[in-house]
């Protein structure tokens, strides 16, 4: 009954027989010929799925995602309805769905959504183990977010990578061949850019995406962190102070007005040529490349990308917008839901999806590093490593309400902004952040 249902799962006849015996709704994990485990899920008869996902940032993403959905329906007969919501609105909707026990079967969420209600989510360990074994394993950060108490509470989807976006000609004019990999060199570059009248600019307003990602990177790169492994607040540390002193120096080189910047501001300023260096997703490049304005289109040739510099801690410490895929326990079709996620994450679907989104989403599975999208244009390459170089925003503690609240309240962003702008000394800013974070981490 099941051997001819889907062609992407290579399983032995014996396993198929076993699955058939288990009947609809059963599943089987076994070793296939190549040594990687196979997973055969049997969607329930007449299953229908509702998926709620974050609204695409680039059109190619949505188009291909829907094509993959259609392919799933064709292969399994399972109808799938997909709704889109702005990514910041998915969080409350998912939480309400978890709370009232009805809503979409699958929700594509962000950051630590699953950690707020792990008991309401379907265990997807089998799918995660299958995919991990087949595609070279999950990056560490996936486990930090979604693996707890020996099970996967949701499936990683990837992340929207955040890299340094810069104007190559301006960096060259400032006397640098590229972006230095160390903090001192990076500061020197920013000073030189400023001196040439082509300054950098990083968002310091309450910008949920851009503000959080670069300020976390900065503090982490010096060894500062909000909490330790036991969730004790340790932000007020000499390492943090060093990071904040650095931020104050860096801020002097910024274009004016960054304290008011929200998520769209750096994109606008960059495309208008007012800043030459910022941190962003690949969307700026995408926008320039696909612009109908010839002036902006020409800009695409001059745009270059680089990963964030590495600080005194000696390893990459980036924060990117992490995406997960949750199946809720209330779903009537758990097997169909798992089969859907499995299907969407298989190489045949996932890599094409990445390609159509021109690398907007970075893979959580290491094998997809070889996706040609990362090398077809060398400018895409830095985004390939977005999951490799990132750590979870609740680092070094566990994810949950405390980490969610601390980030939603912009504790890190505000601390860096206060110290950078000089409205507070680094010491005062760190003390204030400590007090604010302690309120969220007190249990």
């Amino acid at each position, binding site marked *: 009954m099941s051997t001819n249902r889907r062609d992407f799962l290579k399983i032995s006849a014996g396993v198929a027989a076993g699955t058939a015996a288990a009947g609809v709704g059963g599943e089987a994990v076994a070793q296939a010929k190549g040594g990687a485990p196979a997973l055969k899920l049997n969607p329930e008869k007449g299953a229908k799925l509702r998926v709620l996902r974050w609204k695409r940032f680039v059109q190619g993403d949505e188009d291909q995602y829907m094509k993959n959905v259609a392919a799933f329906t064709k292969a399994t007969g399972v109808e799938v309805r997909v709704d889109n919501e702005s990514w910041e609105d998915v*969080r409350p909707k998912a939480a*309400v769905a978890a709370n009232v026990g009805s809503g979409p079967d699958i929700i594509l969420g962000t950051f630590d959504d699953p950690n707020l209600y792990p008991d309401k989510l379907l265990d997807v360990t089998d799918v995660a183990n299958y995919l991990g074994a087949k595609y070279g394993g999950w990056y560490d950060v996936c486990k930090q977010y979604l693996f707890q108490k020996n099970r996967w509470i949701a499936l990683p989807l990837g992340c929207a990578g955040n890299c340094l976006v810069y104007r190559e000609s301006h960096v060259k004019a400032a006397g640098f061949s590229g972006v230095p990999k160390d903090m001192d060199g990076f500061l020197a570059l920013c000073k030189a850019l400023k001196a040439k009248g082509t300054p950098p600019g990083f968002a310091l307003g*309450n910008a949920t995406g851009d503000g959080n990602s670069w300020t976390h990177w900065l503090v982490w790169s010096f060894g500062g962190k909000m909490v330790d492994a036991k969730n004790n607040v340790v932000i007020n540390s000499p390492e943090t102070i060093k990071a904040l002193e650095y931020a104050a120096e860096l801020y002097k080189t910024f274009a004016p007005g960054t304290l*008011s910047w929200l998520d769209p501001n750096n994109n606008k300023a960059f495309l208008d040529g007012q800043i030459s260096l910022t941190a962003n997703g690949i969307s700026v490049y995408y926008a320039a490349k696909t612009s109908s304005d010839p002036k902006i289109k020409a800009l695409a040739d001059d745009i270059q990308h680089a990963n964030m510099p590495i600080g005194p801690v000696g390893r990459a410490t980036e924060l990117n917008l992490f995406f997960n895929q949750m199946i809720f326990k209330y779903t009537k079709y758990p097997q169909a839901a798992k089969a859907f996620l499995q299907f969407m994450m298989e190489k045949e679907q996932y890599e094409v999806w990445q390609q159509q989104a021109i690398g907007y989403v970075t893979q959580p599975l290491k094998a997809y590093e070889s996706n040609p999208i990362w090398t077809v244009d060398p400018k895409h390459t830095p985004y390939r490593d977005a999951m490799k170089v990132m750590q979870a925003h609740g680092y070094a503690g566990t994810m949950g309400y405390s980490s969610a609240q601390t980030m939603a*309240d912009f504790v890190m962003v505000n601390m860096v902004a206060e110290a950078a702008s000089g409205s507070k000394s680094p010491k005062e800013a760190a003390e204030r952040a400590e007090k604010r974070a302690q309120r969220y981490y007190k249990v």
Partner: protein
Amino acid sequence: MSLSRFFDNRNVLGLLFMLPAGALLIVFLTYPLGLGTWLGFTDTKIGRDGVWVGLDNYEFLFGDSVARLSLFNTLFYTVVASVIKFVLGLWLALLLNKNLPFKAFLRAIVLLPFIVPTALSAIAFWWLYDAQFSVLSWALVKMGLITTYVDFLGEPWLARLSTIAANVWRGVPFVAITLLAGLQTIPASLYEAASLDGATEWQRFWHVTLPMLTPIIAVVMTFSVLFTFTDFQLIYVLTRGGPLNATHLMATLSFQRAIPGGALGEGAALATAMVPFLLAAILFSYFGLQRRAWQQGASDK
């Protein structure tokens, strides 16, 4: 028989006819308000039921520097914006009450800022105040008055004043048009009598216009203060509460804590904390401005 008599009873009928309105009020007003207040006394998180924690949320907020800052911001925003809106609105109403050419057209135009959806006009202000693209800064630079762009939303005090200016722009028409309606109800005979008594223009305003207008002022300013105190859209679009939380109002902070932050109980408590201020504003206008004795020419007791 007795049933039809029962329905003929005026009291029964009255109750019956009020039932739909009462049900609407209970379902859509009393219940949400009550639920919000109750949530403020629990530690409910989004996605998780809470338990009664008494005044914990309020104690937490009292000790929270950002919440205290938002209270200050809200009071500052409301007081300054309301005073400016009142003065400008009254002035505009007096001007519009004169015999101007194209009177009807002008009156219609004045209402425009009030008609435009707030979210849209806020986006327009966002561009006006943009650190890089502000047309205001551009014009000032071109005129040679300043050399660098004004950081409207990036400097805490400037950001407060900029958001207030946007709020005033939107709120003045409501005040002006309502006061204009009030002005038109003042009988011309009063002005004639005042003129015969030799009253100057200022005296006519002070002793005739203003007392006759106070009931309207009380109503319109109560509404204006309530709208301003609970403002959300403008701040959310312009600054999201930044820079450095300098423009976070209680409403915006309440949302930030409750929805993105997931702390529904705390957010509800912050929202409930606004109620006493709103009640105070209502009571003030009710008892302070409805001075009937003064309106009728006697002095206040």
